[in-house]
């Protein structure tokens, strides 16, 4: 620790020099833009032009322009776009009729109902059957049929394509070391790049429309699949590969019948991640023209129909839960080789399915309700939800005014001003020092390089504002999330409940709760931070629960035998052992916060997120990507430091 004192001294010197007015300008601010701000000039902050020290944006613009015009990439992308559209049209047509695609007429909704039900039952039993059947019912009864089918068609294209691309890239990277080395940083950036920064190049290359939304979804969903494919293949025990070879496998047989199946857990997790990412993109892709539930949701939000938005949000969550459940159940299904069943027993579910679907088709003309749930029979509880929100706004707003006032004036504004006050070299020094402390010179240089990029790109002040929101939100998430996690982890049942809610909230479209938050807190940083907290607290809770629940039983027994009471057990055993895992949760919380803080620009912020939205609207590809990279690099710097620490800690505890 002592060795780093000089760093601290240097930082202090910089701050003192500045307060004494002795700091030369070039050591204080990068030559740009945001007027140093007490919060009261916040409103005007949006207008300044940004000046780059290195014109990364321009370089990117020209690169993309070159690719588009000279290399003819746009011919390829347009071709892909068109083919993809044809594919989606086919799925869309199968699910909801119309003239596009194959020109089929729409299936009766009951046909889908029985398919969902029988599929669920044959894969897992009554619970899944009720869940998947119930979800289809929900779409129909809540009048979301058309949109749900559009989304389903989108997923039907995006999910398999993402999985296939992810698998292929993962497999090639497994076999070619150079590709793996090239891919890892790209994947890291891809997974931290804000969603909206993706959308701009996608629009430029693929045009607008439904299929472009699908492409954005695919691009977003592929990286985790690649990563998990690679990880899964690398984790297959060498003995298993040898067993495959000794069984006389050819290379292809080895890959498809030994390695990939053995990497199953990771691949399933990958598929699961793909589904979740695709559903997370349902709303965001709607910004560039994907239709379906996401588009519907955005539109309802746009006219402040909160109740209806909530119902759509629930539909998206249900869809996620069902698809997740079905895919898992399908993957876990075992074949029965022993039973030599007669045809009608062996194929009883397909037969039942055909019969029931046929019945739905045959009966539908006579009972129109089987064909389509008429609009006057659909239900909605939107009014109730709206009423609830109104009630909360009416009754809580006044009470929250003081709280809001206090936080903004006494906490947030000073924090932000402090960060903006700090001369940029002092921030760099602090980060480098942290890197040095946690991971040595490599870490220091890496994190420094990330921040220097931001400075050179000309977004330093905005990045500091983003950072301050993330820091504060993370702090609150830790203060609330970890105790909640600890409390939940104390019993198996509570832990399960907590994890269930974590899953649910993670797929719940965050746009929906942004609006009530605005209604309570108005448009300001606090609202944005609140929205970030709601979302980013999930991993803090989840990892705490997991970390504590996964402590080896012998350790727990040892604590019991040592006569620990609950508190002692927690303080002396559970927390110290779980802390590396909890830190990974904190890391995830920070990653979630970085991703959400950009979405929270939807509230109205003056950070990088606002500029990304603006770049999207202007179709300003270079600016958007550079901004995205700024966010990504900040996230990666934190990620690097925290995982570094957690790994070291795990090693010390001998947990690996």
């Amino acid at each position: 620790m002592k060795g780093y004192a000089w760093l601290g001294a240097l930082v202090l010197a910089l701050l003192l020099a500045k307060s004494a007015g002795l700091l030369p300008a070039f050591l204080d601010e990068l030559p740009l833009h945001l007027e140093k701000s007490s919060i009261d000039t916040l409103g005007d902050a949006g207008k300044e032009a940004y000046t780059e020290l290195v014109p990364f944006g321009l370089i990117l613009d020209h690169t993309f322009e070159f690719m588009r015009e000279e290399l003819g990439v746009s011919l390829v992308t347009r071709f892909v776009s068109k083919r993809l559209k044809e594919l989606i049209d086919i799925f869309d047509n199968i699910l909801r009729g119309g003239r596009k695609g194959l020109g089929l007429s729409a299936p009766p909704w009951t046909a889908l109902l029985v398919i969902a039900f029988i599929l669920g039952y044959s894969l897992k039993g009554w619970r899944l059957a009720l869940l998947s059947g119930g979800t289809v019912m929900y779409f129909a009864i809540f009048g979301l049929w058309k949109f749900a089918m559009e989304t389903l068609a989108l997923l039907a294209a995006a999910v398999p394509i993402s999985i296939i691309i992810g698998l292929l890239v993962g497999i090639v990277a497994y076999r070619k070391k150079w590709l793996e080395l090239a891919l890892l940083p790209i994947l890291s950036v891809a997974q931290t790049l804000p969603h909206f920064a993706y959308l701009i190049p996608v629009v430029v290359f693929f045009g607008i429309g439904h299929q472009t939304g699908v492409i954005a979804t695919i691009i977003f969903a592929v990286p985790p699949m690649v990563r998990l494919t690679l990880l899964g293949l690398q984790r297959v025990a060498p003995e298993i590969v040898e067993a495959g070879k000794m069984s006389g496998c050819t290379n292809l047989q080895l890959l498809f019948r030994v390695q990939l199946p053995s990497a199953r857990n990771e691949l399933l997790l990958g598929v699961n991640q793909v589904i979740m990412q695709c559903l997370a993109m349902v709303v965001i892709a709607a910004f560039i023209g994907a239709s379906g539930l996401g588009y519907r949701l955005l539109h309802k939000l746009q006219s402040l129909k909160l109740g209806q938005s909530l119902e759509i949000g629930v539909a998206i969550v249900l869809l996620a839960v069902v698809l997740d459940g079905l895919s898992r159940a399908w993957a876990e299904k075992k074949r029965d080789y022993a039973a030599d069943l007669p045809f009608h027993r062996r194929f009883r579910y397909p037969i039942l399915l055909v019969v029931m679907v046929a019945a739905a088709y045959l009966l539908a003309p006579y009972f129109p309700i089987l064909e389509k749930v008429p609009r006057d029979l659909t239900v909605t509880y939107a009014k109730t939800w709206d009423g609830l929100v109104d009630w909360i706004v009416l009754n809580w707003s006044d009470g929250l005014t003081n709280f809001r006032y206090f936080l903004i004036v006494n906490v947030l504004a000073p924090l932000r001003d402090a960060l903006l006050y700090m001369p940029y070299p002092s921030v760099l020094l602090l980060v480098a020092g942290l890197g040095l402390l946690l991971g040595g010179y490599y870490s220091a240089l890496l994190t420094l390089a990330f921040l220097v990029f931001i400075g050179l790109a000309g977004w330093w002040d905005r990045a500091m504002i983003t950072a301050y929101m993330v820091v504060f939100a993370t702090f609150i998430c830790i203060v609330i999330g970890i105790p909640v996690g600890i409390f939940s982890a104390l019993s198996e049942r509570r832990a399960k409940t907590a994890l269930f809610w974590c899953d649910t909230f993670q797929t719940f479209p965050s746009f929906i709760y942004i609006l009530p938050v605005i209604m309570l807190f108005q448009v300001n940083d606090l609202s944005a931070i609140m929205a970030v907290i709601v979302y980013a607290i999930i991993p803090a809770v989840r990892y705490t629960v997991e970390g504590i629940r996964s402590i080896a039983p012998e350790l727990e027994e040892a604590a019991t035998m040592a006569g620990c009471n609950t508190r002692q057990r927690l303080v002396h055993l559970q927390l110290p052992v779980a802390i590396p895992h909890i830190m990974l949760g904190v890391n995830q919380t920070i990653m979630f916060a970085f991703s959400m803080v950009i979405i929270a620009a939807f509230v109205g912020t003056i950070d990088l997120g606002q500029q990304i939205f603006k770049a999207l609207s202007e179709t300003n590809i270079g600016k958007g990507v550079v901004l995205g990279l700024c966010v990504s690099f900040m996230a990666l710097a934190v990620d690097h430091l925290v995982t570094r620490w957690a790994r070291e800690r795990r090693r010390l505890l001998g947990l690996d």
Partner: protein
Amino acid sequence: MKLFSKRAVASALFAGLGISGTATADCGSSDPIVIPTHNWSSQIVMSHVVGQLFEKIGCNVEYTSTDSQAVYEAVRIGDATIELEVWEGSFATSFNTALDKGGILDAGTHDAVTREEWWYPTYVEEHCPGLPDWEALAACAEMFARPDSGGKGVYVDGPVEWLHDPARIEALGMNFIQINVGGAAALWAELEAAAKQNKPIVMFNWSPNFTDALYGGSFIEFPAFDEKCKTDASWGINPDATNDCGSPAGGYLKKAAWYMMPVTWPAAYKALTRINFTTNHVGTMAMFVDVEEMEHDEAATRWIEENEDVWSPWLYASQ
């Protein structure tokens, strides 16, 4: 080959070779006319009305949702075929940029008059008598203050990308700051919360809009717009600053089309140039959805049913 079919058909027509085999009798081409929809109700319903009208003359139509600024670039390169609501206040810049670059046609102006301006819901008049005059508003600045505004009044503006000019506050010497929301939805959330609690609010809004029917309200009357106001500092009440005036009060609402549309879908283009909605029409369409909770396409169908006398000349008038 299919990639270029639009161009191929178009050039065939140019060459006077007649209508290609795939074209339908009336529309000109079986390629879909792509109608972009945005995130406000009147525009979506209007798009569906026009789409359904195009279908009546045998065209294929496709709707695709797009950003309302990005759409002009999309029309210019043919990803979208038309744009039905070009609001002067918010989109003139993007539209004009696209016109300059080429590839987009000005397909005429609706009768509907638009206005985008500082706005308040009716009940605010009780708090601040003298509204809608801007000087009255300036005098009430304190009641619009917030904890984070340092005692100044807060004007809730639209997203930064809507490109409003913040210089006005300064030019008119108002004790206000503006904050930008991130999206229209945030505007309505602010409005709803303020209205529920009967608190004063002044915000960006436009007309026709669904808020007219739900809250009532008026635009702030600033010194009237004049071209010189933007360029000539000496003009207006502040002799030292430009921007000392309001936005245009009677802004146009235009239609735009891809430059190949007259060739590819001549009948549809002809209809498009005649299509002309009034403020009333726009308000009705928005109301069907926002107040009566109809679906967009149903609202469009209903409007078509109720207004045959309005639209039939657009489609069938001989020229």
